[in-house]
C-alpha cells in the first residue's frame, strides 16, 4: 500500500537506501525450502556440519552400520506385526487355515501369531524378516564390539561411548528375549518357565520377584501383556535414545581411523558425508535390508506352528533360547548341580543363580570397566584417534581372545545336546569337556594369541629392517651366495613403524639416593606388576637409527642388493611422508633405498 501524502522531511530521506535485514541470522543465505526451514529453525549450521563430516573408509567400520540398519528393519517389520498380534493369554480354539492345529486350544497371542503366519498376506515373511533382523542385529552388535575392542577404539576420549555400546548390547539381548517369549509357543513358554526359575533362584527375594513379575504363580495371564509393553515400548525407546547418543558422540568425537601414511591423531582421512557417505550409507541400508529379506525368504526361522501352543506339561528336545541368550543357558548347563547349598534351612541355588542371574551383569560389568582398567595400568591418558593394529597391543588382543573363548565355551555349551546328536557323541562327555574347557581353553587362547601377536610384530620388524625375502639366490663373483631382499615401499613401511614404543612402568627404587626407604604404595606396586604383565615381552617398532644400523652392520649383500634395486623403487618417500613422523622427527628411510 502506498500513500501519496508528502511528509515534512521527505527531502532529507531522498537518497536513502532502505535497510534490508538479512533473511537468516547466519552469514550464509540459503534459498528455497532450505532457507525457509533455516529461517525458522537455524538448522543450517548443524546440517552443514554433518554434511561436511568426514568418515574414513574400512569394511570393519560398517559393522556398526549393519547393526543400526538391522535395528531399523526390526522397527519397521515390528510395526507391521503389531497390527495383528494380540498380546493376551486369553484362551481361544483355533479354526484357521493350518490343519495340524485345527480345534486346538491356545492363547490369543499364539493364535494371532499363527494367523499372521498363515492368513495375513505377507505376514510370514515379515515375521521371518523381523526375527532374522533381530538375530543379525545382535550378531552385528557383537562383531562391531569386537572390532572396537581389538583396535583399541574404546580409548580416550571414547570410553563413554564404549559404555553406552555395552548397555545397548545388553538391552538388545533383553529386547530379543522379550520378543522371543511373546508368541507363547511351546519353545518360548519353556523359556519363560526357565526365566521364572532364574528369578526364584535369587537369594531371599526370589519367590517375591517371580510373583511380582508374573503377577502370581506361573504362567498366569499377566506376563504376555507385560512383556509386550516392554518389547514394543520401553526397551525400544531406551534403545533409540542411547543409540542416538551413541551416534552423536561418534560425530562429535570424529571416527577413528586405521594408521597409514597421511593419517594422524589430528586428522580424519576420508570422504565427507555429502555426497559420498550419504550415498554409500543409504545404499548400504538397502543392501542390509535386502540381505535380511533374502534370508527371510529362503530360510525358515522360529516355526511357531511346529512348536505348538504353550502348555506347561510338555517340553521339546532341543529347547534353547535364541543364540544371544545361549551363553547364559550354557553357563546353566555346565554349572555342577552340587553348587546348591542349604544354609540354616534356606536354599542357596548357586547352581542356577550363577549362570542365570550373575553372569550377564558380571560379563557386561567387566566389559564396561575394561577401558578404565587399561588406562590405569598403562598410565596412558592421551587421546587416541588412530586405531591400534591388534598385533601391536598383544596383551589386550590376548585378553580379548580370553574373554571371547570364555563366552564361546558358555555359548557352545548351550548347544551340547545338538552337538551330541549331530556328531554322535555323549552329551555327558561334551558337558565335562566344556566344564574343564571353561578354565583351560581361555588360557590357551590367551597364550596362543599373545604369542601370535608378538611373532607378527617381530615379523614386521624383520620386514622393515631387512625387506621382503624375494626367493632369488644370487651368487657373487667370489662364490658366496645370498638371498636378495626386496625393499618395502615407504607407504607400507610407515604402517609397520608408526606405532608408539611402549615400556612397562618401573617402580622407583625401594631406597632413594640417601638410603632412605621409599615404600611404594601397594597400589603402585600392583600397577607396576600389571604394567609388567601388559608390556613384558613388548616388541617395539623399528626406530630410524635401528634402520640405519641395519644397513651399515657389515651386511654387504644388502648394499649390493640396494644398488640393484635402487632404480626399481620409484616411489618418492617425500610425497608419502608429508605427515610422517617417526619418533625424533626424522624422515623414515626406505629400506634398500638411497644412500647405499
Amino acid at each position, binding site marked *: 500500500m502506498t500513500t501519496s501524502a508528502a511528509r515534512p522531511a521527505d527531502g532529507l530521506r531522498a537518497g536513502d537506501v532502505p535497510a534490508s535485514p538479512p533473511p537468516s541470522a547466519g552469514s550464509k543465505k540459503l534459498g528455497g525450502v532450505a532457507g525457509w526451514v533455516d529461517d525458522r529453525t537455524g538448522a543450517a549450521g548443524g546440517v552443514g556440519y554433518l554434511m561436511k563430516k568426514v568418515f574414513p*573408509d*574400512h*569394511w*570393519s*567400520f*560398517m*559393522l556398526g552400520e*549393519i547393526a543400526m540398519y538391522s535395528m531399523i528393519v526390526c522397527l519397521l517389520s515390528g510395526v507391521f506385526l503389531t497390527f495383528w498380534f494380540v498380546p493376551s493369554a486369553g484362551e481361544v480354539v483355533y479354526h484357521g487355515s493350518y*490343519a*495340524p492345529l485345527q*480345534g*486346538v486350544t491356545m492363547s490369543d497371542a499364539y493364535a494371532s501369531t499363527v494367523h499372521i503366519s498363515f492368513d495375513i498376506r505377507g505376514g*510370514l515373511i515379515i515375521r*521371518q524378516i523381523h526375527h*532374522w533382523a533381530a*538375530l*543379525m542385529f545382535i*550378531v*552385528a552388535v557383537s562383531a562391531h564390539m569386537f572390532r572396537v575392542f581389538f583396535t583399541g577404539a574404546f580409548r580416550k576420549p571414547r570410553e563413554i561411548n564404549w559404555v553406552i555400546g555395552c548397555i545397548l548390547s545388553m538391552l538388545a539381548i533383553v529386547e530379543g528375549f522379550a520378543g522371543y517369549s511373546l508368541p507363547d509357543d*511351546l*519353545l518360548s513358554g519353556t523359556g519363560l518357565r526357565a526365566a521364572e526359575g532364574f528369578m526364584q533362584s535369587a537369594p531371599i527375594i526370589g519367590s517375591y520377584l517371580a510373583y511380582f513379575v508374573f503377577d502370581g504363580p506361573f504362567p498366569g495371564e499377566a506376563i504376555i501383556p507385560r512383556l509386550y509393553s516392554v518389547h514394543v515400548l520401553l526397551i525400544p525407546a531406551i534403545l533409540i535414545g542411547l543409540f542416538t547418543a551413541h551416534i552423536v558422540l561418534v560425530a562429535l568425537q570424529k571416527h577413528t581411523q586405521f594408521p597409514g601414511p597421511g593419517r594422524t591423531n589430528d586428522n580424519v*582421512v*576420508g*570422504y565427507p558425508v555429502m555426497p559420498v557417505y550419504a550415498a*554409500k550409507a543409504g545404499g*548400504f541400508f538397502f*543392501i542390509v535390508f535386502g*540381505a*535380511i529379506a533374502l*534370508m*527371510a*525368504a529362503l*530360510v*525358515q*526361522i*522360529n*516355526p511357531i506352528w*511346529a512348536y*505348538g501352543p504353550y*502348555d506347561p506339561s*510338555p*517340553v*521339546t*528336545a*532341543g529347547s*534353547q533360547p*535364541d*543364540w*544371544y541368550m*545361549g551363553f547364559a543357558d550354557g553357563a546353566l548347563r555346565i554349572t555342577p548341580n552340587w553348587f546348591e547349598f542349604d544354609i540354616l534351612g534356606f536354599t542357596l541355588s548357586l547352581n542356577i543363580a550363577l549362570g542365570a542371574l550373575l553372569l550377564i551383569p558380571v560379563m557386561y560389568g567387566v566389559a564396561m570397566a575394561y577401558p578404565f582398567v587399561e588406562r590405569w595400568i598403562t598410565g596412558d591418558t592421551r587421546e587416541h584417534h588412530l586405531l591400534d593394529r591388534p598385533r601391536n597391543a598383544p596383551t589386550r588382543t590376548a585378553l580379548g581372545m580370553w574373554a571371547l573363548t570364555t563366552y564361546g565355551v558358555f555359548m557352545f555349551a*548351550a548347544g*551340547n*545336546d*545338538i552337538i*551330541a*546328536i*549331530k556328531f*554322535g557323541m*555323549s*552329551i555327558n562327555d561334551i558337558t565335562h569337556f566344556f566344564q574343564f574347557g571353561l578354565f583351560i581353553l581361555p588360557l590357551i587362547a590367551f597364550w596362543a594369541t599373545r604369542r601370535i601377536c608378538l611373532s607378527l610384530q617381530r615379523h614386521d620388524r624383520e620386514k622393515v629392517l631387512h625387506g621382503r625375502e624375494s626367493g632369488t639366490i644370487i651368487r657373487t663373483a667370489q662364490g658366496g651366495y645370498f638371498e636378495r631382499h626386496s625393499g618395502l615401499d615407504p607407504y607400507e613401511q610407515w604402517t609397520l613403524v608408526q606405532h608408539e614404543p611402549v615400556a612397562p612402568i618401573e617402580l622407583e627404587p625401594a631406597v632413594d639416593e640417601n638410603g632412605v626407604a621409599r615404600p611404594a604404595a601397594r597400589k603402585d606396586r600392583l600397577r607396576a606388576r600389571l604394567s609388567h604383565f601388559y608390556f613384558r615381552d613388548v616388541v617395539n617398532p623399528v626406530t630410524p637409527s635401528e634402520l640405519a644400523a641395519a644397513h651399515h652392520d657389515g651386511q654387504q649383500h644388502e648394499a649390493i642388493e640396494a644398488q640393484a634395486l635402487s632404480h626399481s623403487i620409484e616411489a618418492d618417500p617425500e610425497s608419502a611422508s608429508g605427515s610422517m613422523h617417526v619418533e625424533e622427527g626424522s624422515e623414515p628411510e626406505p629400506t634398500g633405498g638411497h644412500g647405499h
Partner: protein
Amino acid sequence: MNALAARRRHPAVLTVLLLVALVATGCAYAAFAPKPAQAATADADQVAQGKKLFQANCATCHGLNGEGTKTGTGDQIAGPPLAGVGAAAVDFQVGTGRMPMAAPGVQAAQGVKGAQFTQTQIDQLAAYVASLGPGPAIPAAADYDYSNADAAKGGELFRVNCAMCHNFAGSGGALTRGKYAPSLATVSPKHIYEILNTGSQAMPVFNDTNLSPDSKREIIAYIKTIHTEPSPGGLKLGSMGPVSEGLFAWVFGLALLIGFAVWLGNKSA
C-alpha cells in the same frame, strides 16, 4: 433281443445267478477282508524256517533258544532274552535294520542300508520269536491306517508324549551318554505303531491302556502330516530349534553382510 435276454426266464437262471453272486462275494471277501494277525496263524513251517534264520543270525547274542546271554563282565547283557517280546518287536527291530546289530554300542542304530532281510524272512523270524512266548503281534494294515485320524489331536499327544526326546518336529534329540532319540522322518507307520507297543532300548512302552489304538493312529497321522507338508518358511535347517538358526546367522548372514561391507569399503580413495 439277444440270446441272453431270450433265456432270462429259464428255470436255471435263479441258480446260476445265485452261484455267480456267491462266487463274486467270495472273491471280493478274499480280496478285501482284513487279514487276521499273523502271529495267530503262524504255521509250523514258518516257525521252523525262522528258527534256522535265528540260529544263523541272532543266536550269538540272544542265545541258541532266544534265552539271552551275558557278556561275562558284571551284569552286562550281550543280548536280552526274547521270550515274550512278541512278533511286533522282531518286525520293528529287524525291519528297521537295527537287528542284527553291526557292532556293540550304546544303542542299536537304525540300519544305514535298511533291513537286511526280506519281509518273508522277517515274518519267519517273528513267527519263531512269537512261538517262544506270547507278546504283541504284528499289527494289521487297518491298525496303523491313519487316513481318518485327527492330526491336530495327534499333535497334542505328540507334544505331551514324544517331543521331549524326539523334538517338536520329530527330528530327534540327545539322551544321556551317547544315546539318542532318532529322527522320525522316515519311519513307516507300521514301525511307529510297533515301537509304541513294544518299546525298545530307551523308548518306553505305550500300551493300549496308555495310548489307545486311536491315539496311536492320531500320532502317526501327525508325524506323517508334518513330514509331508511343504515347509512354508523355506529351508528348515534340520528343524533343530534356535541353535541352527544362530549358527546360520553367524556363518551365512554375517559372512554375506561382511562381504558387502568389504565390497563397499574397497570402493574408496
